[in-house]
């Protein structure tokens, strides 16, 4: 693990990705200690101040400190998408390994269903679910987790199939190992790299999706500080108070870039070529 980190950090893009990701995680975790102001505190005397010494990134239309809001602004998005990414990776990964290993008719039929799911417009389906279940993490996390899991499943299953054709898996099957030891001991260790990279990639796309939802009004709701919501709220003032839009955009994009670079670097360090993954 340490060696992997060292390999990643040895390339500038990998180091940048790692740095950005860790930086954002730290920011989100330590927000209460970093943010100088209460991110929801409105103040009529500090409306739309340009960046200055006490408000490093200026203030918004309700006089709230943009810096504090930006620092807090990733918490919900990161928490929601990270949970969803973990769910997606776990279930998609497990199912992918399972179907890739088992093969045959079961796999064939399952893949039909998976392909059908993949050809659903995910954002719209998410919106459909939201229209039924209402907006909120409890709707969004399982839905994101499920849909992105389908994509993970597809990728992992492809890799698992190639792996399952290798003789050491045949050897384990011939030896009479039960399914579970085959999945966990023979298959999983060889696919964990792919899962790691897939998970990271999906996580970054989910961040993008979640911020889009927030922007549309289906993700975070006021007064939660959230990057997507902040952009939606301050967007109209781009020409007079650009800081209200600029900083949340910058932080959001830098986190996504960071995760992307990190995933690329991890993939390269582990010898995977993952540029062909679907950006779902």
């Amino acid at each position, binding site marked *: 693990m340490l060696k992997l980190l060292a390999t990643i950090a040895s390339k500038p893009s990998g180091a940048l990705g790692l740095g950005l990701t860790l930086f954002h995680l730290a920011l989100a975790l330590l927000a209460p200690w970093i943010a100088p102001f209460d991110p929801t505190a409105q103040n009529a005397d500090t409306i739309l101040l340009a960046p200055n010494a006490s408000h490093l990134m200026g203030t918004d239309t309700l006089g709230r400190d943009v810096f504090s809001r930006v620092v807090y602004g990733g918490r919900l998005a990161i928490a929601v998408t990270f949970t969803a990414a973990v769910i997606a990776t776990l279930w998609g990964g497990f199912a992918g390994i399972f179907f890739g290993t088992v093969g045959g008719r079961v796999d064939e039929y399952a893949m039909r269903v998976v392909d059908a799911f993949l*050809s659903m*417009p995910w954002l719209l389906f998410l*919106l459909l679910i*939201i229209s039924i279940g209402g907006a909120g993490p409890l709707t969004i996390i399982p839905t994101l987790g499920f849909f992105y899991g389908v994509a993970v499943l597809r990728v992992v299953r492809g890799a698992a199939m190639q792996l399952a054709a290798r003789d050491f898996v045949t050897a384990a099957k011939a030896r009479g190992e039960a399914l579970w030891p085959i999945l966990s001991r023979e298959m999983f260790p060889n696919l964990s790299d792919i899962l790691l990279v897939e998970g990271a990639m999906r996580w970054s796309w989910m961040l993008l999706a979640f911020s889009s939802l927030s922007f549309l009004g289906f993700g975070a709701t006021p007064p939660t500080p959230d990057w997507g919501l902040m*952009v939606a709220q301050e967007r109209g003032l781009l*020409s007079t108070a650009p800081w209200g839009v600029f900083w949340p955009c910058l932080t*959001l*994009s830098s986190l996504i870039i960071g995760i992307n670079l990190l995933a690329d670097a991890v993939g390269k360090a582990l010898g995977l070529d993952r540029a062909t993954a679907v950006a779902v």
Partner: protein
Amino acid sequence: MPSLILRRFGFAAFTIGFVSIVMFAAVEALPGNVCTSFLQRFAQGPRLERCIEQQGLERPAMVRYGDWVAGAVQGDFGYSLKKRKPINELIWERFRNTALLGGLAALLAIPFAIFLGIAAGVRRDRSLDLSLSGAAMLAMTIPEFVTATALIYVFAIVLQWFPAVTIVSPGAGFMQMLPNIVLPVLVLSAVLVAHIMRMMRASVIDVMASDYVQMARLKGVPERQIIWKHVVPNAMIPALNVIALTVAWLLAGVVVVEKVFNYPGLGTLMIQAIFDRDLPLVQAIALIFSVIYVGVNLAADLAALALDPRLRRKGH
């Protein structure tokens, strides 16, 4: 060959059927029904009864599903709860607008992206590749609503080249639409180009390392000819399906783009329908999008079939 094509069509039909079931089931699974979730506090008395009657909710789910599908095939998606109008009257104009937006974006982005992907893949790790890949990475990670906002600021407000929001009558012709869709198409294309380019690049790099490209070199084929005759068709094959999937998934971004540009398309209609909890309308739009997506995938499948002689072998 014909049987292969039939198979693809069959699968597309299966997919649409499956998606429709999932969507129908998702709505069925909700506590209460379409009417109660629409009427909320007012779900009682004659209003509820009228709604239930109008939506035909007293019939069993299977029958309703059958009717829904049968209607949808004929372009009849039922009745909007909120707008109190047949859904097909509501969506046709907007479908046209969205198709114009998405279609134009795809039409421009795909060839351009493929070209860039080839350029980057061929010049792997050189400055052109690095700058293209870097730009792609940026375009992929910046949310569409941010790009859109920035473009509006620069091109509509500062330069005043294009309108900031879409202002056209529902029946407007193409020439009237044109200035309005330049910016939305740009935003959608940027993301598409980035993703497809990356994919194409990876595929080109793979193919460049293949034995047959080495062989072509050793045969004395000039580099340019190697790229266009040997690399590109073969790099396209694996990329095609992935491109289709990406195009399909990314076109969901029209919802965001339409919202930002106030564009009268299916996306904005869907957002409104969700706010209104007008589930029949939401379902209809989601189904239409699914059909488009399946269509895109089908097109990619058929293109792959045309490109790849290996797929055409019988019984494969």
